[in-house]
């Protein structure tokens, strides 16, 4: 994991190395100051040497200024290194995600990817900065101050050393124990919040069944439980501060007593005693800091792991070595195709599919939810790879083509389609960056999108909000179809892409397809029989196998499922709302 992450430091290696150096210099200067202080007391005040006070004072001031400089530099380079590291992480992840296949994306989920690119990166940025600055500063202060203490009086320094060991152990025990309780408490806390969330979104159900009191009871019990758990964890943490105070105080008492005796015995000076007391604070504070830094770093481990998952993920669909850049025509054939999303699951999503579709044909696909309609078509543009058998386009296996070539020739209008923030023109030109305004408008005319676009105040320059929230479902679908048409593909796949478009417009779009792009092979997945019944042939899918393949009339005569669906839908569109939606 460290290696993967470390590789992303790249051009910020220099800054990452310089930062700790400055931090160390700052610490050294800081630890020298109390020593010089001792000299002012001993050789200045006690010896009655005013000049010495001035000279040493000047040196101290210089040390403080140099320390200031180092601190500022450390802060500057630390900021550069950590934000740069974060930038590289984001970039590397984003780059790798661009190579992800659909199954890679499914594996992480959209929300998972977003968290990794945002929150997790911020966590690591903070952790890295802490690593470069605090993680250097605290232990180094401890070491320097300890060394100084030994330099002044090895005998008294032993007290510090043992105090550090004792306090270190106590802090470790407290931290580990408290952490254990927190680990138990946090999921419960999340559960509690999840139940609030449930109540908020299901408030109608709660109220309709008059279950307010029941929910209150449940919540109060859970809330009390959480109170107990956090109380337990925090009670352990409550030992932190007193333990630290007790250690420091014991040290001060011991040093005062032994130091006084040594001064009287002339083996220590007053100034040295004072600087020793000041090192005591330095040492204990940095120990405390170290334990805090440690806890914070462990919290970022989970983020680091998640980021590494993305960085090390390799796409399972890659370009072949000597790819074909030319697709002969829009013919499609499936030969003994078996496919499953999860390679370890036994039941395939599609099994032993055999199909042969001629170039230019219009094919309807129909079947219930879970009958694998979407899976079937996603194999054609190699969004997923088959497990067994092969899919061919233009007479050649899809796996032999260059991926970009294949996907440019096989346009898919996905079921969960997305428009991006930008003007309508911007969105349309996803299909063809060089399309003229003329071509864009033509594509919209084919997709019956021109009528509503013309009615918008800014027409084709209308700005689409993120996620296309300012156009209706039906309008969005038509824009997506137009966008795909601009690719001028050899094969066009519509995955339930007109479900929110009313029946009349749906028919108009299909008519335009037949007249304007007769050479393009068209695959249309639909819930409505009316959307497919005029297709050249119709595939009826059921549980991942082809139940029927033929014309409307043939299927009506021979296929039970088709007849069932047909009968349940005859008499109208089957849905009252749709006309009003678009």
């Amino acid at each position, binding site marked *: 994991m460290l290696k993967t992450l470390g590789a992303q430091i790249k051009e910020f290696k220099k800054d990452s190395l310089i930062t700790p150096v400055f931090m160390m210099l700052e610490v050294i200067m800081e630890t020298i100051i109390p020593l010089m202080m001792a000299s*002012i*007391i001993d050789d200045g*005040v006690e010896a009655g040497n005013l000049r010495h*006070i001035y000279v040493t004072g000047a040196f101290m001031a210089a040390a403080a200024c140099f320390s*200031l400089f180092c*601190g500022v530099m*450390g*802060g500057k380079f630390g*900021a550069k290194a950590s934000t*740069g590291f*974060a*930038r590289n992480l*984001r970039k590397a992840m984003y*780059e790798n995600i661009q*190579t992800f296949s*659909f199954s890679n*994306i499914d594996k992480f989920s959209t*929300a998972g990817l977003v*968290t990794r690119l945002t929150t997790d990166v911020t*966590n690591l940025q903070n952790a890295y900065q802490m690593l470069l600055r605090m993680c250097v500063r605290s232990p180094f202060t401890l070491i320097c101050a300890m060394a100084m203490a030994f330099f002044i009086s090895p005998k008294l320094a032993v007290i510090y050393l043992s105090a550090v060991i004792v306090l270190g152990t106590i802090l470790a025990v407290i931290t580990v124990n408290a952490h254990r309780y927190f680990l138990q408490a946090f999921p419960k806390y*999340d559960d509690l919040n*999840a139940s609030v*969330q*449930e109540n908020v979104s299901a*408030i*109608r*159900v709660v109220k309709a*069944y008059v279950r307010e009191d*029941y929910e*209150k009871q449940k*919540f109060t019990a859970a809330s009390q439980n959480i109170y107990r758990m956090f109380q337990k964890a*925090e009670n352990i943490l*409550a030992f932190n501060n007193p333990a630290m105070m*007790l250690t420091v*105080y014991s040290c*001060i008492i011991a040093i005062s007593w032994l130091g*006084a005796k040594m001064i*009287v015995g002339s083996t220590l000076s*007053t100034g040295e005693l*004072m600087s020793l*007391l000041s090192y005591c604070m330095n040492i204990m504070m940095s120990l405390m800091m170290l334990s805090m830094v440690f806890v914070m770093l462990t919290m*970022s481990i*989970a983020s680091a792991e998640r980021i590494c998952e993305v960085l090390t993920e390799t796409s399972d669909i890659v370009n072949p070595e000597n790819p074909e850049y030319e697709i002969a025509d829009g013919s499609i054939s499936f030969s003994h195709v078996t496919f499953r999303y999860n390679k370890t699951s036994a039941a395939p999503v599609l099994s032993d599919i055999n199909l042969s579709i001629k170039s230019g044909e219009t094919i309807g696909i129909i079947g*219930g*939810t879970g009958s694998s309609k979407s899976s079937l078509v996603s194999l054609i*543009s190699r*969004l997923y790879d088959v497990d067994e058998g092969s899919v061919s386009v233009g007479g050649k296996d899809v796996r032999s083509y260059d991926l*970009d070539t294949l*996907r*440019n020739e096989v346009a*898919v209008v*996905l079921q969960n389609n997305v428009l*991006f923030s930008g003007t309508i023109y911007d969105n349309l030109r*996803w299909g063809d960056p060089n399309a003229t305004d003329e071509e864009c408008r033509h594509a919209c005319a084919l997709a019956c999108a021109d009528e509503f676009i013309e009615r918008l105040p800014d027409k084709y320059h209308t700005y689409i909000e993120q996620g296309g929230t300012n156009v209706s479902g039906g309008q969005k679908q038509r824009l997506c179809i137009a966008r795909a048409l601009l690719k001028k593909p050899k094969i066009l796949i519509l995955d*339930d892409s007109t479900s929110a478009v009313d*029946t009349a417009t749906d028919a108009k779009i299909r008519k335009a397809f037949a007249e304007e792009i007769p050479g393009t092979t068209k695959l249309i997945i639909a819930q409505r029989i009316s959307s497919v019944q005029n297709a050249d042939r119709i595939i009826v899918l059921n549980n991942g196998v082809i139940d029927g393949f033929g014309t409307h009339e043939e299927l009506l005569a021979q296929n039970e499922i088709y007849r069932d669906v047909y009968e349940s839908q005859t008499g109208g569109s089957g849905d*009252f709302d749709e*006309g*009003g939606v*678009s």
Partner: protein
Amino acid sequence: MPAGTQTAKPIHGPGARGPRGPRPKVNHPERLLLRLLQKILKNYGAACVVVVLCIVISVLANVQGTLFMQTLIDDYILPLTRQANPDFSGLAHAISRVACFYAVGAAAAYLQTRILVNVSQGTLRNLRNEMFLHMEELPVRYFDTHSHGDIMSTYTNDIDTLRMMISQSIPQFLNSIITIVSVFVSMLRLNIPLTLITLAMIGVTLFSTKKIGSLSAKYFIEQQKSLAAVNGHIEEMMNGQKVVKVFTHEEKSLEDFNRLNDHLYESAKNANTFGNILMPVNAQIGNISYVLCAIAGGILALNGVGGFTLGGLASFLTFNKSFSQPINQLSMQLNNIVMALAGSERIFRLLDEKPETDNGYVTLVCAKKENGVLTETEERTGLWAWKHIHQADGSVDYVELKGDVVFDDVDFGYNPDKTVLHNVDLYATPGQKIAFVGSTGAGKTTITNLINRFYDIQDGKIRYDGININKIKKADLRHSLGIVLQDTHLFTATVMENIRYGKLDATDEEVIAAAKLANADAFIQQLPDGYQTLLTGDGANLSQGQRQLLAIARAAIADPPVLILDEATSSIDTRTEKIVQDGMDKLMAGRTTFVIAHRLSTVKNSDCIIVLEQGRVIERGNHDQLIAAKGKYYQLYTGNLAET
């Protein structure tokens, strides 16, 4: 929060409130603070007094320890060095006294944190409970008009910042103030000129903090902006990543991202630099203050000006160090307190929301019929009656619960100035099935909000078995109605418990019977643990159709005389739909039912079909009548609707 839970449940609200950056603005912080303190003191008044005492004790113990250095050097070490046979017994005595003070200080510190755990966690628990208990009483309107994310963030973010405030910011703030005062007094007593030097350097620190703060504000705002831009882009592109693949748009997407990412790097670098600089700058100004005092104090002690001694210098220098730290921290603690107050403002806003009012007095009771006369009874007879106590003379009437619903010239709007339903009249006799059809936004769903009084009508009357529903106690009214909503909501619990939600004292057998009635039994049996299968995340592991079936079963077990069904529109395939429809049909048998219809099969056999458009009833009648009329219904039905 442990980072590990973030992917699973992104419900921690909008994390936009960063730890640094400009201080949030709050109106009347003193009022909020006062109100919050009242909440805390109400239950933990004595504890808070003890905490404050403990803080004072531990600070004073520390201060006397520092002052002891003067005594140690001036009264013991220096005199002892001059003695031939030093006698350490006086020193031993003095040191043990200091040790006692220290011990008391440490004990007080422990007591303080220990009590604070109870105060902070206890207050949070009380607040959380108060919020939830209050929230459950709020009208549905509240949930419809407030974003669920915002409500949630009150429970998560705002409560979390409040915890920080009660357990850390406020005690630390008190600690800082007490430390500053006591250290300042001690310094004044030790030496006035040196105190002035220290104060002057504090002035420099405050100035530099302010300067750096105002310089960095610009960069922090810029960082916030570019971070928002990058996060927005990430969110959009990750959502559309599959489309990016399909359109081979990877290069372009990367290009855009790199531009934003580089920009974020620049602004984050600047903001962080300033953030990092503040601490060393303040620390070193503190060191310079220390150095100046050392030099000046050295000179003073050397010349013995004003009786200033070496021991005094030693103590003073230690005070000098412990003076700047609390002052530097004050502003941070104040920031945290203000931030938490902003959170508590949102908490109080929730607590101040007006709960649902209920002036109903007609209740639902079990009844039995003897010689045609209804009387109230304790036992469950299966026969229910409305108990109507007349306000005028106190006489009691019993009306049998039948499910007779009348809308009389009803007007309604979610906002008073925008009427959604106009002059709606309708009449449903017991056992009838009334279907509402019309395009989206016609006001169909609104009607379901009125019968059970999720919202109150503005004009007209709704009568239930002849009684104005405003007179019926809401709980009893809702008990007599069953609702199956379009978006089914299931709870984190077993399948069994989810169905039992409709009737808490139902036996397992009753639950299974209800599931069978709703056609849900078959799929439940196939779940890994059958009826004991745990559902999480609103039944995320079930299909839309299956969730719908559970919701039907839940309504079935409640066995209400009147049903309101909002059919699911989302793409359940035709075959599952058939099963769901069948379940609904069985449920509807013998009950007055209002159906928000989306499918043909539901409508065809309704007793009455009501066609709504823009909040008005434009057609009514049964299927055949409406088809014959060739109006809007005919258009909807045949699907020959021109696009609107």
